[in-house]
């Protein structure tokens, strides 16, 4: 199984070829939007964070920023900082350099003397970088170079019945062929974590799976909340979900049946040697979950939604799938794949898994998803606590 991609000097392979204008903090985020708007082939994203954060909270932000620059879909990065933020420019460039040796430039608004001067210089730099990026040709690579991020959001019972099992089949196919597939959203395997733990490669991975769930639960308890109370929600129960195990089993189906090879913390760089099914500790919140996996190195996402959602990603194509026929008909403009034939016995999970694999390969090779073509780039970053 092969796909066409762009070789990066760090050994990774991208399926898109962006120049990233990276805001170190909220104070430079609009400036990066303006720069990206001037240069065809340059992209940016909304960064609400990067300042007024305690170290444990700032680390998540720093890892996402560095991971975005290191993502294989990025040819090179232009970092833009205000100058006084917590996520200092040199801290960000150093964190990027620890992950990748790709082209990297930076500008600091307070040192350049305001936004207009910064935008002028960064726009020229971006224009030149985009011109160089255009010289990189696509080549054929084995599927082992691909990392898939899986996600569910706006779930209803059809998510667990059709869409997630089909994603799980895709995950198994990729794993059998030597790629990496990421199962995420730690809060959405509470109640089924022992099942996942029993699929761990060894005792160390098993302990890590249970640890990230415990850690997340403790986080809520410290805030005077309890994530298990009222779960399933009245809405879940009205929809047909009876127990927490049943709900979480529906969610973890995105992970198929493969052995779990490793557990990664949020937004950490996924090691090339970790092939197969891995878990990343991310929130159930869709945008921040995808940001974590993108920062880890995922080049593409498959995202199930029973209710339908338009969201995308700034750096990677997001394939939307639903098991709800009504939702597919209502939101066909935003949803790429209809998994409802499983529910009506028209097609099997295996058949649809193969079809989804075909769509995945087409998307890798250049077919734009609906979220991608329509320009949806929502980004959020996991938090440890409030701003200072």
């Amino acid at each position, binding site marked *: 199984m092969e796909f066409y991609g762009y070789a990066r000097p760090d050994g990774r392979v991208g399926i898109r070829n962006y120049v990233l204008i990276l805001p170190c903090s909220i104070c430079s985020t609009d400036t990066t939007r303006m720069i990206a708007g001037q240069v065809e082939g340059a992209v940016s994203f909304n960064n609400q964070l990067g300042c007024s954060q305690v170290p444990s909270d700032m680390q998540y932000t720093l890892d996402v920023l560095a991971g975005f620059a290191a993502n294989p879909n990025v040819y090179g990065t232009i970092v833009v900082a205000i100058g006084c933020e917590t996520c200092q420019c040199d801290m960000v460039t150093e964190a990027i350099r620890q992950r990748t040796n790709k082209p990297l430039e930076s500008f600091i608004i307070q040192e350049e003397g305001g936004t207009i001067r910064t935008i002028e210089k960064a726009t020229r730099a971006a224009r030149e970088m985009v011109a160089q990026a255009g010289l990189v040709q696509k080549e054929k690579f084995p599927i082992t170079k691909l990392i898939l991020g899986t996600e569910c959001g706006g779930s209803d019972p059809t998510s667990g019945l059709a869409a997630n099992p089909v994603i799980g089949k895709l995950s198994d196919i990729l794993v059998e062929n030597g790629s990496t597939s990421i199962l995420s959203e730690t809060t959405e395997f509470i109640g089924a974590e022992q099942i996942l733990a029993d699929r761990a490669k060894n005792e160390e991975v098993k302990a890590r799976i249970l640890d990230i769930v415990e850690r997340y639960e403790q986080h809520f308890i410290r805030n005077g909340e309890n994530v298990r*109370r009222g779960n399933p929600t009245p809405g879940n129960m009205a929809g047909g979900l009876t127990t927490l*195990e049943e709900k979480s089993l*529906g969610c973890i189906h995105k992970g198929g049946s493969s052995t779990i090879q490793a557990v990664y913390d949020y937004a950490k760089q996924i090691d090339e040697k970790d092939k197969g099914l891995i878990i990343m500790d991310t929130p159930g919140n869709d945008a921040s979950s995808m940001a974590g996996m993108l920062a880890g190195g995922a080049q593409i996402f498959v995202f199930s939604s029973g209710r339908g959602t338009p969201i995308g990603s700034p750096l990677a194509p997001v394939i939307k799938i639903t098991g709800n026929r009504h939702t597919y008909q209502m939101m066909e403009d935003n949803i790429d794949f209809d998994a409802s034939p499983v529910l009506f016995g028209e097609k099997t999970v295996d058949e649809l898994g193969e079809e989804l694999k075909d769509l995945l390969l087409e998307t890798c090779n250049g077919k734009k998803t609906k979220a991608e073509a329509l320009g949806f780039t929502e980004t959020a970053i996991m938090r440890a606590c409030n701003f200072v």
Partner: protein
Amino acid sequence: MKCGLIIDPKDNVVVVTEEVKSGDTVAYRLDGREFHIAALQDVPVYHKIARTSIPEGSAVMKYGQIIGKAVEPIEEGQYVHCHNVKCMTKEVL
């Protein structure tokens, strides 16, 4: 004939993919063969119906896994939900 969906051969419940009324027959496919369940109760769309009897205290299986325990005897064709199934995870205060 109403449609149902079984996920794993070990499951003792079937999910109905359309609204089911007491007296309907629910058809589902397993290993290429079609099986029928006579519905003894109404079952809302995407909810569960028992495909075999489930004794009190024994496991309710879906996705090939235990999703809960029957808190009363459940007959084949009965509606399976919060009224007759208990969650098995630890209660956290």
